[in-house]
């Protein structure tokens, strides 16, 4: 199972997917991929957990990643 931490004013909310070979699992992966793509297209960055810590990642969505996080765009001032 993987998850996306969607940082927002509520602290964060979680989108999860499973990698089993079922219709429901495929749907959860598609939904997770769609959220990540939408966030990136809106200027957000994405990090993924690697060896126990998060690093900013530019690669396409990979359902085998344990955890992604959507980072807010930043602005000066």
């Amino acid at each position, binding site marked *: 199972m993987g998850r996306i*931490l*969607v*940082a*927002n*004013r*509520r*602290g*964060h*909310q979680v*989108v999860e997917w499973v990698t089993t070979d079922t219709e429901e699992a495929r749907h959860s992966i598609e939904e997770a991929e769609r*959220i990540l793509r*939408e*966030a990136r297209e*809106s*200027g*957000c*960055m994405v*990090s993924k*957990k690697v060896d*126990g*810590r*998060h*690093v*900013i990642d530019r690669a396409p969505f990979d359902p085998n990643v344990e*955890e992604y*996080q959507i*980072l*807010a*765009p*930043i*602005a*000066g*001032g």
Partner: protein
Amino acid sequence: MLPSPAARIASWWRRLLGMPPAAGDSLNPDDAAIERPWRHRWDHLPKRTAGAGFSRADYAEARRRAREVARVTLGDALWTELQDQGYLDVPSRLRPGLTYRLRVGRRIEVRRAPGVRSPWRYPYLCINPTYPLPEEEFFAQLYLYTRDREDVILKVAAEQPWDQLLGRTF
């Protein structure tokens, strides 16, 4: 319970203007779903607030969840370092001799090794998220930006002569 006519009108206007839904808005179809803050405009919000309808309990819960995710994002070693000393230092990769000192909810302090010139006249950099976030959550995100995407920091930072709380976090 059915929403009042005034609540219906307020909800309708919020959607029309691209504003985020009020907390607990039963007319918002996404209320029970994931809030995607990049879909909304947040410029109208007063500084250091999360929007209409956010109760004291909502703030407390948001900060609790933020602390949890900040720890996961940084990892235990950095989290402990932050708790012990109150800041994290990130050495610049693009400007050798500069170090960014990050503190929760405050501007970045730029520190220089002796003899090193800074690209900025002033020692503080003001960088905010474009939507409201609890300050510990944004701290962890800013750490990732500074360590992994310093080019973005250099591009967006607004230099300032003094330290101050950030306006878009709470």
